[in-house]
């Protein structure tokens, strides 16, 4: 399965991005394919935590089409996590707009938003002794009324989500006693139980060992394939991005360095520009996707 396109001038169908030059601030051009709807998009979005301080996200535009796995790539401090929070509606941009479907983000209530977007954070710490099933059931909250209790169908959805992530057997285990990989899969199940069409994941494999990394990566690919879950994954693991994501958005210092199909964007030049590292980017014959091998520091 190759993600490389013939030339950089051809945009693959279904994903339209604007590549920004760092110095120019041109208005964005966006074209859409009639067939693939854009579920989530950001237009010229900027954000600063402190109004007088550093701008963390600076004029970023991107669009997420249905069925995609979009990777947000960049070094520490590039604004990936903040961008993810802007996309999930947790933060409101100081400039620009985020839209979900046709509607602006602010038009939806938090519950409505939660029915359409689910977030998988990097780590989940539970202060109390909830079971894995209880954690997953919390994902049903946006679908219930103020004092409504979960019913049999909610339970079925939760169990189905656990099965989808291969954690059904852990249902009655205390969440805090699970291993890192198991916890992450339970949290993904909880996000699945939310029955949202978009899943936002913040560094999903950062704290996992190699084995669990492969587990989670193949799980996400499978969910995308079998359940048509659209995803935005923020990561600085280049190989994860290469193996999982259909499209990439490269962020540097809060701005988009490049965006497009993975094959087009994940190049040696871009890796050097993004990380200051000289790397070999090549299609690995047995893995079936691009791999990035760092060679030397360039500055």
């Amino acid at each position, binding site marked *: 399965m190759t993600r490389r396109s013939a030339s950089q001038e051809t945009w693959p169908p279904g994903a339209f991005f604007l590549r920004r030059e760092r110095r120019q601030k041109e208005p964005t051009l966006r074209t859409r394919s009639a067939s693939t709807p854009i579920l989530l998009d950001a237009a010229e979005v900027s954000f600063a935590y*402190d109004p007088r301080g550093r701008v963390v996200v600076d004029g970023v535009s991107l669009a997420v089409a249905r069925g995609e796995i979009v990777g947000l790539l960049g070094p520490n401090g590039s604004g990936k996590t903040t961008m993810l929070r802007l996309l999930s509606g*947790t933060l409101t941009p100081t400039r620009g707009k985020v839209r979900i479907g046709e509607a602006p983000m602010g038009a939806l209530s938090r519950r409505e938003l939660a029915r359409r977007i689910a*977030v998988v954070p990097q780590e989940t710490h539970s*202060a109390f*002794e909830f079971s894995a099933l*209880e*954690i997953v059931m*919390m994902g049903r909250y*946006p679908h219930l009324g103020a004092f409504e209790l979960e019913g049999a169908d909610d339970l079925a959805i939760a169990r189905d989500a656990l099965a989808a992530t291969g954690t059904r057997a852990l249902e009655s285990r205390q969440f805090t006693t699970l291993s890192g990989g198991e916890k992450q899969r339970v949290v993904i199940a909880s996000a699945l139980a939310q029955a949202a069409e978009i899943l936002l994941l913040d560094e999903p494999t950062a704290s996992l060992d190699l084995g669990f990394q492969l587990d989670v990566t193949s799980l996400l690919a499978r969910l995308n394939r079998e359940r048509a879950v659209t995803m935005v994954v923020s990561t600085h693991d280049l190989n994860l991005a290469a193996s999982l994501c259909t499209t990439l958005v490269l962020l540097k210092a809060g701005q988009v360095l490049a965006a497009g199909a993975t094959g087009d964007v994940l190049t040696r030049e871009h890796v050097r520009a993004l990380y200051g590292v000289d790397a070999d980017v090549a299609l690995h014959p047995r893995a079936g996707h691009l791999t990035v091998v760092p060679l030397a520091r360039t500055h």
Partner: protein
Amino acid sequence: MRRRIAVTIAGFGALAIAVCILAPLVGTTNISLARVFDRSIAFADNVDAQVFFVARLPRVLAAVLVGGAFAVAGVVFQAFLRNPLASPDTLGVSSGATLGAVIVITFHLDVAVRGVSALPVASFAGSAGALGVVYLMSLARRRGTSSTVLLLGGVALSAFLGALNRLVQVLGDYTDVFRSMRWMMGSLDVGSYTDIIVPLVPMVAALAAIATLPRVLDLVSLGEPAAESRGVDVKKAERVALVSASLLTGSAVSIGGPVPFVGIIVPHIVRLIVGADHRVVLPAALLFGGSFLVLCDLVARTAFGPAGMPVGAVTALIGGPFFLWLLFRKFR
């Protein structure tokens, strides 16, 4: 789920009722139930009836209210601060109440205006002051700051108020210091029903507000971003929760003083029995907290001679070792 909640309320409710019926019958003075309800004896002459209705029953009711209030406030604080060691005093509300009381005691402002004693009013005012600061802190939280900031701010406020307490006490004489210390150990001997009915109003309001939050407490205990992404308006919920829990605490302190340990350990005991789901934990904490304090007060007034012991000493005697055991169990 519905069954779980119903069974829990039934079980703990039965415990609370049983304790409330039996506790007034037990004490250092022997009374006969028959005499207590003997209508033929004039109330003014019926010592047994007076012991039951004037000395013991208000005390038991005060214990139920104060214990339940502290326990619920403890649950709410522990969930929102995501810290199992949090208590109603973590954000300084008890310290504020203590400051109000200590000021009245030390500067001899202890007067009664039209039957209303200054001391509980001052302690409630002190807790309201601390509550105001807590509220401002929660308003001032900028986007992206975690609850750790709120926790640290509360700890600082609590320490500051504690220092003010000590400063004021130094200005008093030996008797004042003794009285302050006795007040701080807590006493449920209210002797009248007015002292209970008046604080009941803010308490019921606070409990009603908290009753809208049980599921939110579950979600928030996983972290603010996690709760937000599942549809919770965390900032608003936090304000409602902290203000209500502080109101509960302030009212409870104005009745019986800052009885220690109930707010920390009862939530944990309840979670050990019913699990972590706050829709079950909250009603259980309310009922069990009341029962627990009634029992502690029973021990305090019967097991230590005719003069008894302050109820706060008993809750600490039980609470301290139990809490240590909990810690060892959890962090071994």
